[in-house]
């Protein structure tokens, strides 16, 4: 089987004589050599601002940037002008909350989230709650981590519901939520819908037309591309209606001393010089994944999930959060007596990179009555041997630390 780890230079790093085992893809993924090369190439060969000035460098930079927009649009089956480049998924969510939210929500309106959200899809709405007095309600989860239909129907039946914003894959439970049905239900009621695809984007083929959401967000750095670049997808009509948020160069068609005219979408939302090299590199990462193919990615990741779930049966002291079905290769555990920070720290000393804490999902941990968890998040390039190594090391640490 092909060793895809070779495509990521980070993974050849050694730490204290151990090969690096990278199980923290949900925090940020390693970067592809192709991505690194494209950033270097941009600085060495093109390095110009985009949409400005009639010289060949500007033209090349602009072409590369706009080509990346086409690649990303194609990657999620959107129209090119529906792709807005931001700095992150978080920035995209904040852009929607400020632009759409502030101009469409009023006191008493209900914003619906789920219990499984990341802080990035909670705090922007809490800020609006402080500012204009909206109400926030959360769809409950079933014991297996799936969204409770009863809770969903009850909450969405209320006439004051104006927005539904849900994660497509929980960064703690690892569950992939098929949101098509709930989005359709919301759309039929005139409720605006947002999907946070930050955790699903690297594991599931995405077709925004089929999904049907008004907005969708994700980050480049969880997709093997640089940090500091994110995507906001918005349905064409929706983006046309909502006001610009950041003001500055590029987002206007003309400016006078007392007024301005905004540019067409997507430029209307891209004020100032963007992360040009990051955007170009994101395009490179998307093309890599397309060439690799979802069939290969899904097959490899399913193999990793199945192997992991089989191994963990022998470790009853690790309580896996969330059910086994529809799982991305992401595993969080309650480690009971052993503190997740100790484990993550000591595993790190063995070259195994994992995360401990509440992973920016404090309300979810409280809801699950777990103080903190240990999280392993894998990707298509990881291997069963790496999983074996983790479990072996875990057992050793357990013996050293047990009282």
């Amino acid at each position, binding site marked *: 089987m092909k060793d895809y780890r070779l495509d990521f230079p980070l993974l050849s790093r050694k730490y204290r004589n151990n090969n690096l085992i990278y199980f923290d893809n949900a925090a940020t993924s390693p970067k592809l050599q192709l991505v690194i090369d494209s950033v270097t190439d941009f600085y060495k060969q093109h390095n110009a601002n985009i949409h400005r000035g009639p010289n060949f460098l500007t033209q090349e930079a602009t072409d590369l940037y706009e080509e990346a927009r086409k690649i990303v649009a194609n990657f999620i089956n959107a129209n090119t002008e529906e792709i807005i480049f931001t700095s992150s998924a978080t920035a995209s969510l904040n852009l929607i909350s400020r632009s759409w939210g502030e101009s469409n929500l009023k006191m008493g309106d209900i914003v619906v989230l789920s219990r499984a959200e990341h802080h990035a899809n909670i705090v922007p709405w809490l800020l609006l709650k402080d500012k204009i007095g909206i109400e926030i309600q959360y769809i409950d989860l079933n014991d297996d981590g799936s969204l409770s239909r009863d809770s969903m129907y009850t909450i969405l039946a209320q006439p004051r519901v104006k927005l539904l914003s849900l994660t497509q894959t929980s960064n703690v439970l690892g569950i992939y939520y098929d949101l098509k049905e709930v989005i359709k239900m919301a759309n039929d009621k005139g409720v605006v819908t947002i999907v946070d695809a930050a955790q699903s984007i690297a594991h599931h083929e995405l077709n925004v037309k089929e999904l049907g959401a008004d907005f969708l967000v994700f980050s480049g750095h969880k997709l093997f591309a640089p940090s500091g670049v994110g995507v906001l997808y918005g349905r064409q009509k929706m983006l046309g209606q909502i006001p610009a948020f950041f003001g500055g160069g590029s987002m206007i068609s003309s400016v006078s001393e007392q007024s301005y005219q905004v540019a067409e979408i997507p430029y209307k939302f891209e004020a100032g010089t963007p992360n040009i090299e990051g955007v170009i590199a994101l395009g490179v990462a998307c093309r890599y994944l397309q060439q690799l193919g979802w069939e290969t990615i899904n097959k490899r990741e399913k193999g990793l999930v199945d192997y992991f779930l089989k191994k963990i049966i022998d470790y009853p002291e690790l309580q896996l959060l969330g059910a086994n079905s529809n799982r991305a290769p992401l595993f969080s555990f309650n480690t009971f007596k052993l*503190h997740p*920070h*100790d484990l993550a*720290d*000591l595993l790190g000393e063995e070259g195994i990179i994992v995360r401990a804490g*509440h992973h920016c999902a404090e309300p979810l941990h409280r809801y699950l009555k777990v*103080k903190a968890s240990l999280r392993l998040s894998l990707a298509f390039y990881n291997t069963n041997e790496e999983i074996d190594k983790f479990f072996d090391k875990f057992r050793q640490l357990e013996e*050293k630390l047990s*009282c």
Partner: protein
Amino acid sequence: MDIYAQNILDHYKNPRNRGVLKNAETCFKSTNASCGDEITVYLKLDDDRIEKISFDGHGCVIALAAASILSETLIDKEITDILKMDLSDVQAQLGIEISNRRSKCALIALRSIQGALKELD
């Protein structure tokens, strides 16, 4: 950083002065929000010195070992000196190097002790 150091593991596995201190004159709970750790400290004083310390709560190896160690080493120390203590002092008591990523763990017990002392004002 060596959290396997004999001294650290010994205090973690056999914590000294763990539990609620009856007749405590002051107590204080500190939390580390990012990991959910909580250490409550109970103090008995003898004028301007500490006579007895106990602690309760939950935390990682570093947090619990630091609480246990401080509960012994700060006895008879002057309150004004304890209020001035910081990471380097705790590090000296633990006898291991504390990396930045674990400094909050090392400090939670000290913050509780200092918090309890400030409650007296």
